[in-house]
């Protein structure tokens, strides 16, 4: 019953529960890859395709952070089973750690499906030395958005969490420039979009995947600026604070 044993048990619990609900899991994991295939696949510019592949990987990870992780917390936190688990000698953070580890596995799977579909359907040029920076960029943004997922999970009721997460997922993808490159977005978005967490995340991820080869658009630099990293870190702190606040508020409502 060390912290490790407990975390492993909750990781296994989450993995089993999700793997046995394929009707929910498969669409969540496959949808970003499907949209890539339907709307983006087959483009001629390998640089453009690679850029888009990275965008859809972010979108896929965002889906896991919001739906499987965030909405999962919202729908389970007030169930009698979760109340029973609270009576065990279980530090609440270890249950969360088990959830987070399971979400990370599914995020990797969702992103890998995007990569597989991209390579199978579209000309991609990805230098071998780009995978590590790409993984680092995806991980940084993935954690930031996982904090946002926890915040959604604790601030919204089980019923509200799903539509709220869906709306945030779609808006953040569109304005962030994950569907269409930022330079192709309507002019009115210019007042908000550059400050959104998905845009900052993209600003870090796109250069990571394209390296020095890019001349894709004038709005993109080939290296992420320090401002992008700081901005994303700021969002991570903000979302983590909202998550902790939401958690304490929920404790206060149900367990004070």
């Amino acid at each position, binding site marked *: *019953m060390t912290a490790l044993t407990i975390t492993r*048990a*909750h990781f296994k619990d989450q993995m*089993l*529960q999700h793997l046995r609900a394929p009707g929910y899991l498969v669409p969540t994991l496959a949808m970003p890859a499907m949209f890539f295939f339907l709307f983006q696949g087959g483009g001629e510019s390998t640089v453009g395709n690679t850029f888009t592949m990275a965008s859809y990987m972010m979108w896929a990870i965002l889906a896991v952070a919001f739906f499987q992780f965030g909405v999962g917390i919202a729908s389970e936190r007030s169930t009698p089973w979760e*109340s*029973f688990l609270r*009576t065990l*000698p279980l530090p609440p953070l270890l249950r969360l750690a088990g959830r987070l580890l399971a979400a990370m596995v599914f995020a990797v799977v969702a992103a890998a499906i995007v990569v597989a579909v991209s390579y199978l359907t579209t000309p991609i040029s990805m230098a071998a030395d780009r995978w590590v920076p790409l993984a680092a960029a995806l991980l940084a943004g993935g954690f930031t958005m996982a904090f946002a997922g926890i915040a959604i999970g604790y601030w919204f009721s089980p019923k509200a969490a799903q539509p709220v997460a869906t709306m945030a997922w779609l808006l953040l993808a569109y304005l962030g420039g994950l569907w269409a490159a930022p330079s192709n977005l309507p002019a009115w978005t210019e007042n908000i979009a550059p400050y959104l967490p998905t845009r900052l995340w993209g600003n870090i991820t796109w250069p990571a995947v394209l390296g020095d080869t890019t001349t894709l658009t004038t709005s993109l630099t080939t290296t992420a600026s320090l401002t992008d990293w700081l901005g994303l870190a700021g969002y991570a702190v903000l979302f983590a604070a909202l998550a902790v606040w939401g958690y304490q508020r929920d404790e206060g409502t149900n367990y004070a």
Partner: protein
Amino acid sequence: MFIAELDNVGKHYGTVEALKDVDLRVEKGELVALLGPNGAGKTTAVNILLGQRRPDKGTARLFGRNPTKPAARTPVGVTPQQTAFPQNLKVREVVGLVQAHYPDTPSGKHLLDRFGLADLEGRSAGGLSGGQQRRLALALAFAGNPKAVFLDEPTTGVDVEARHNLWTGINSFVDAGGTVLLTTHYLEEAEALASRIVVIHHGSIIAEGSVSEITASVGLSQVRLRADHLPELANADRIEHNNGIKVIYTADPDALVQELAAAGVQFVGLEITRAGLEDAFLTLTGGGQ
């Protein structure tokens, strides 16, 4: 040191006073039944003892420690509420998940066997029948070799034979030095198991003692008879009509019978018995909830 202790505990929910200055102490080897109508404060008292809620005033201790610290709950087993099991986990996996939190556990097979669940370990926990879910709930309370268990309605919905087996199991746990805090609506269960009854009503403890002490303190007798019509009876506490039989609850059966005779009531089949725990409970809590 007490196994579980509430020391002058008060708790509000908004303007509702759920507990008022409650003192409750459970000693090692006791089987205490906490009884009360719905909303009386039983659940709040148990939740505070298990660290699920914080008291507004007073202190709660579990094995001498603060129950909101997860490690303080290690020697305690708890039954989950009915129909609470995850749909997608097998019985064996539910047991494994719970056992991962304890340093010393019986083998899962042995545990399931003890609660008559040996054939069900591969079944979906959410798909068990009501009685099977109750038995699994009880098995989970004992999954970590506890020194004390908190049982909530342990045998509701279980058939008679299984119920008596479970009661035997609970009794042998107590005989071996274990401690039980039981909350139940099923008074026969409290009567069969409890070494001490605590009755809680409107957030306060209103009676406390062994089953016979509680029934004696209420001092209620049951007078049963057949009669067509009963007049107003000064000595009757409460009257129930049961298929033509009148059941009269009274503190003074002698005076009641004299009153009946004086009023010229034509009755047959007179029986007088000391009222049971259920009758005492209804009287203490103002009858019929």
